[in-house]
């Protein structure tokens, strides 16, 4: 009964937040910059959730998520440019291709342990980036500028940020719910046991290879989905910007900051870190210095050294203490 009440309360909170998020743009019509930051936050919520699945739950440190992101962006853009195909189809084609690449890559390297897997993914991501930089067919270093179409739902193109806001919000919510569902499902349990002790999980009869691949592919799907939409939003993609390893790294830092292997972690991390980065960039970066990066580094270091479970666990502890206080 009590549990139920807690759930009820939590649900209500989420609902209120959702209302706020839905209504927020009405107050921000004249503040596209804030909208832009919101959109970037949503992008990183989704990407960080994707990373959370493979890294936070299944425990495989992947530095290749930005490649899937780029595959999504490139596929839909190429289809739009050459076949004039709506990004709605491109989106699924991109997801399919990213899924295939993830499957093949994962099949080959997911048996590698810990650092080896991490370094292998870095190498793969670098290879793809270098190939794209030299592949004239996909614009090489020129990148691809999306053809400006009439603003429409069909071409997923608008001149205002508002529709993008809702779309990215939707994607962020979908990915969070997806992770929540996985978290509560049997697969989530398997992922966690793989992360804790892979050999043990194998002994218990869990098909570790299958589940790791599953996490990898789903993670790639989410990244590709966000990639397509991001390309539609930013209207220009090039290997140096959307195959930058910093995208994956940022996801990792966000998840770590928020809380590894929790549903709320990536959301919290993105909501705090992305605006913080924007803020420091504007307030400190303008001085021609690198202070913002230093602050970023210090925050991560402090989190890692003193609170490796992330901010989410601090919040939970605070909540417990408050409840205790209220009770007494």
């Amino acid at each position, binding site marked *: 009964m009590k549990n139920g009440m807690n759930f009820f309360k939590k649900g209500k909170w989420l609902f209120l937040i959702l209302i706020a998020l839905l209504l927020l743009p009405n107050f921000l019509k004249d503040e*596209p910059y804030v909208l832009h930051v919101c959109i970037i936050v949503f992008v990183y919520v989704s990407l960080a959730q994707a990373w959370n699945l493979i890294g936070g739950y299944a425990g495989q440190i992947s530095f290749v998520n930005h490649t899937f992101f780029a595959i999504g962006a490139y596929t839909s853009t190429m289809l739009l440019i050459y076949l004039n195909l709506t990004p709605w189809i491109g989106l699924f084609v991109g997801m399919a291709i990213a899924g295939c690449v993830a499957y093949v890559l994962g099949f080959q390297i997911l048996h590698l342990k810990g650092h080896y897997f991490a370094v292998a993914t870095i190498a793969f991501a670098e290879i793809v980036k270098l190939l794209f930089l030299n592949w004239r067919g996909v614009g090489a270093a020129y990148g691809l500028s999306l053809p400006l179409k009439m603003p429409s739902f069909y071409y997923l193109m608008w*001149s*205002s940020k508002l529709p993008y806001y809702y779309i990215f919000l939707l994607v962020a919510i979908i990915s969070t*719910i997806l992770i929540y569902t996985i978290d509560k499902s049997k697969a989530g349990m398997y992922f966690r046991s793989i992360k804790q002790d892979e050999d043990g999980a194998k002994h218990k009869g869990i098909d570790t290879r299958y589940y790791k691949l599953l996490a990898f592919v789903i993670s790639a799907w989410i990244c590709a989905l966000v990639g397509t939409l991001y390309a539609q939003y930013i209207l220009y993609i090039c290997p140096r910007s959307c195959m930058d390893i910093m995208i994956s790294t940022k996801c990792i830092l966000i998840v770590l900051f928020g809380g590894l292997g929790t549903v709320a972690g990536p959301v919290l991390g993105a909501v705090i870190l992305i605006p913080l980065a924007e803020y420091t960039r504007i307030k400190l970066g303008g001085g021609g210095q690198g202070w913002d*990066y230093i602050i970023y580094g210090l925050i991560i270091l402090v989190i890692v050294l003193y609170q490796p479970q992330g901010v989410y666990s601090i919040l939970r502890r605070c909540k417990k203490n408050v409840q205790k206080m209220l009770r007494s």
Partner: protein
Amino acid sequence: MYSYYIRGKLKKNVIQVNDGDVKMKKEWKRISFFLMTIMLASTLSGCIGEKEETPAPTTPAPVEDIKIGCIWPLTGDLAAYGAANKRALELAVEIINNKYPDLNLPLAASEGLPNLGGAKIKLIWGDSRGTPEEGRSAAEYLIINEEVVALLGCYQSAVTETASLPAETYGVPFLNPDSSSPTLTERGYKWFWRCTPKAIDWTRNALEFYTDINEKFDANLHTYGIFNEDTLWGVESGDWLEYWADEFGFEVIERVQYPHETPDLSAEVLRMKQANPDLVHIAGYISDSILYVKTMKENNWLPKMVMSGEMIQMSDFLDALGDDGNYFCLTILFPQDLVTTKALTVKLNEMMDERYGKTFDDPSARAFTGLFVLADAINRAGSTDPAKINAAFAETNIPGEKMILPWAAIQFDEKHQLKAGGYVIQQIQDGEYYTVWPWELATRDIIWPMPSWDER
């Protein structure tokens, strides 16, 4: 999707809470229905509303302060350029906002902009970090939150490309003083102006120069080699060099595309040495150019001439290489020696030196010029209304003597591109930069061909 999630949770709840479960269910249903309606309505209003809406013009800033947004890479691996431009622009603001009657620059004699009641220019800085997205979000921030009247920037073509998007959307003039990608002005943007030659121009100038050399020295130059980095700028430069080489009857026998800031360039140089062209062009940033010179020396190989972009004029190049940097050529917009005869530039250089201990270099001179072009346009517009400023841009005509750069005049063509204004070619001799081409502007005779490493 979301309401499904909530309801799923509620079901659990409902099973456990016996009292009033029907009531609660109903209530939630109503709330979720209500929310759905709001969501739909606001989405629709957003989508429909934006179609009718023309981009809202930003409200003009108070007359006292004319805010100009500046976007350059202030951090990241190109921050050196950003820092140099920042210094130059601060000096330009100082000159515009205060009385400097002895300087023959537009707006120097008056305090502020006379047609706007002496309004002062204020620079608001945005950091592009050298990445297109950051450049774009910086532009957005500057337009919306800082309500800048116009934008200046962004050095790298890729960044300029994305940063000019919001300017186009919101109808804010964007003046680009230093990106050379030709596509920028081919996009047909209404609010985008560029007061610098395109990449196509300097590649053509370089080939013209070699044609002249062939005539003058009967040098019989024919083969051409290109090093270009794998960035947008590098690839584009390489492509244009190849195009013009072909046009002028040179043969590109080796084109080496290399990864930007790679740890080692031996393979690249060895390949070029193997092909052994008469002429080599380096289209790369300064770090790579330094490494190229060092690696060529290690390999004891030089073609008849090596030319590079204007970035090797940055003081880092000779600081790094010393005498080894001698005899290299560069295409440049702002040859310092040429304008030492010009009292204006001498004076400005002194001011710069006094303030920051640095001198003008090419990017900073271009950014400096850009701000004057912009201020001049705003002044002639007599208002901060973007449309009027845009109109004033079209009529820009700043004569050569009122500029730090050695061009005939600044005027824009119908594509918003600088009309006249080409590159000159400099050669490094005795650790100094001397203009050697066009012949009539030369301050020293060219040393041709460049002496090999053994002969130095």
